[in-house]
């Protein structure tokens, strides 16, 4: 497989210069590097600019409802564990509308990879604050500037015991595609929060702004992502310096292992034509 095998003919509706392009490129590279075939990959999305991504790549796609990308993704993986299931979602879709599913699917720990296009703003609805918009940022709705405390996805994920917590940057596709490879390889729920400039509506968190602040934690050989306390401290860092890379890792059994489905044939392969329920009748006699 090479990059062209993942090329979709669907016309791309993103703004020129959008950070989403970098994520698309990184994802394709990762899938090629992992030797995945389009037919074995399922991309699941909700609504938002990020949610359009599955259309721009040759792979299976379930583009569902706003905020509801993770539940069908987890269930599709449970139904057919041979699929590589990836969620492409945004800060509004995943951390806002779908916050409940984000929390509980970290607990559920199905082997899926969740890539959050975090541009810190609402793009599709044209510029309102998202859960991760920096305080003080003025929008047409938050006219006096955002007064809500931002949601801290990496801190949240670590606190919930997510086994793979990473942050990428859409302009660094080499680094991001490596994170995606690691995320897909991780057995369990993998969160990759991606800083992604919105060139139309976010005038603060621009390529230049991010460019000055980002650094890679894994460049420091002393940084141990298995150290939960250190990881949490790293996740709290925001402002002058913004860490990228695998912030936190924990090896833990996945949902598939704990539920036993990883030791059985994929559910979708189960023959259902002649299920004999007569053995249950004794319980009702």
């Amino acid at each position, binding site marked *: 497989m090479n990059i062209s095998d993942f090329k979709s003919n669907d016309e791309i509706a993103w703004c020129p210069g959008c950070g989403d392009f970098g994520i698309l490129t990184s994802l394709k590279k990762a899938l090629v590097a992992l030797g995945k075939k389009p037919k074995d990959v399922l991309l699941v999305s909700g609504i938002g600019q990020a949610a359009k991504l599955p259309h721009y790549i040759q792979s*299976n796609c379930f583009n*569902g409802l706003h905020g509801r990308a993770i539940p069908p993704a987890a269930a599709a993986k*449970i139904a057919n564990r041979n699929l590589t299931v990836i969620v492409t979602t945004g800060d509004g879709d995943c951390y806002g509308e779908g916050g409940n*599913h984000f929390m509980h699917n970290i607990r559920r720990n199905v082997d899926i990879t969740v890539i959050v296009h975090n541009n810190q703003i609402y793009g599709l609805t044209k510029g309102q604050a998202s859960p991760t918009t920096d305080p003080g940022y003025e929008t047409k709705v938050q006219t006096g500037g955002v007064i809500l405390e931002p949601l801290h996805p990496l801190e949240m994920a670590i606190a919930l015991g997510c086994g793979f917590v990473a942050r990428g940057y859409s302009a660094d596709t080499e680094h991001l595609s490596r994170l995606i490879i690691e995320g897909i390889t991780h057995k369990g729920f993998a969160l990759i929060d991606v800083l992604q400039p919105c060139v139309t509506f976010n005038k603060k968190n621009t390529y230049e702004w991010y460019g000055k602040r980002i650094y890679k934690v894994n460049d420091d050989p002393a940084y141990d992502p298995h150290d939960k306390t250190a990881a949490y401290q790293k996740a709290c860092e925001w402002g002058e310096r913004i860490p990228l890379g695998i912030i936190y890792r924990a090896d833990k059994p996945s949902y598939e292992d704990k539920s036993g489905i990883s030791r059985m044939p994929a*559910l979708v392969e189960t023959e259902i*034509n002649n299920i004999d*329920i007569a053995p249950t*009748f004794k319980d009702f006699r």
Partner: protein
Amino acid sequence: MPNEFTIKIAGEAGQGMQTIGAVLSRLYKKAGLHIFANQDYMSRVRGGNNFFQLRVSEKPVFTLRQKADIVVALDKKSVTLHKAGLSDKGIMVLDRKQSGILQADSSFFDVALHEWAVSIGGSDIFINTAACGVMAGMTAIAFEPLGEVIREAFAEKGSDIVEKNIKVAKAGYEFTQGNFKKKTFSLKAGPLKDTLFLSGNEAIALGAIKAGCKFYTAYPMTPSTSIMNTVAHYATQYNIVVEQAEDEIAAINMALGASFAGVRAMTATSGGGFALMVEGLSLAGMTETPVVIAEVQRPAPATGFPTRTEQADLDFLLHAGHGEFARVIYTPGTIEEAFYLTLKAFNIAEKYQIPVLIMSDQHLADSYRDIEPFDVNKIKVERFIITKEESQKVEGYRRYKLTESGISPRAIPSWIEGVIYADSDEHTEEGHITEDASVRIQMVEKRLYKKMAGLCGEIEKPTEYNVTGASCVLLGFGSTYGVLRELCEQSGNALGFVHFPQVWPFPSKETNQILKDAKKIITVENNALGQLARLLKRECAIRIHGSILRFDGRPFDLEYVDAQLKKYS
């Protein structure tokens, strides 16, 4: 009361009315008698006043009577609460000393349940078996079968517990034989039949298992939860994943994800949870993803009466979901229908790639009846997917390919060489987002007109009884089946009835045909608006003469409907 009696076991939540009910049900079933049992419980785990009611008869029974012939009052409150609910010659079984009831009453049969439990069993938890002994004595059943049932019921707890239970039951039995002289409650035992005794919810669960449901997900909500409990009980045996969702929104979206991936999936809830699922229902319609949803109604709005019954979500289910798309709504009226229609729901959902709703209610959900074992060959599992073998030959796959029937061949991700796009946006045949007006028209016609045309050919026919001969025809859907049937049967030829096991697509043609010469038509509904009557007016332009409505959260019984009918005679 000839040929039948009704027993009501009442007490505080946690006093074990269900245990007594379960033992007695098995006992009478063993005696070849027929049983209709239901529960009336409050939304609390301890305290309050709950009861388990058993109607035992020499003939098959399908519904309740208003009055009990025997009330077993396990606490003082039950004596006052249920005194008025005793039939003319009814007996109140009570432990006067334990309940602190000083006055005597000709209806009382005083039994020392507490004393037997403590002195023989060593604990008051044996009160339940003591009561079972008394009931067996009062209803002239031999002790041996009761011993057998107790042995079966407590086998898991070890022989010591079994023997103690039997001794306590025997004390109650022997006391009653010596002191209860009336022969009112002696029924003729029938031949022992190989019947099943289960509830509406258990039947839905067994139907789902038989249908090949491999992914069941739900958020617990009374009165739907026992479907999940039952599927979970058999999940390992039948290779089913049961996943408790974080909310109902997750439940329906997970069911759709699993279904998209190729497995049969189901969720269940009650009205409030279904309200949360509505956007997902619309998603199923748009993405053409099969899903089966059981909506087990309880009185609403909002939290309503969590543990009681109502049929007020008919309008809601007919119209739930933004936009226009095909759906099917089944309304089973019996334990058997609950099973067979669940099976059919999975076939139809998969064939038409639509959401199929099974609308039940607390009354059917928690009612038990003895039935013939299900005919597991009556409805076969029919698959409507491109099989793994066929998938090898698929090229240029389009998920929403336009066809005459409106149904596009459904491929399973990873089985075909190509890829599958499903989208909640309006989409092209390939599944990509579009805003093209002509594509929009074709897709709406596909999802709505074409599929509905097919579905109209697969309608579950209404059940009719004595419609032409009757001076008055009663109409109902769902759990009212039993009361309509028995009322009509006991009326001679005066009454007829029509029961609708499916309300959408509505069987308009059939209904017009059935009712064309009906003299007087009255709907019987557990709601305040007369939603079935309104549906009939819309779909059939039939004149309805009136509606017998009940919306106090309680199910209909024979006497209640009979009394209301007098208004129309």
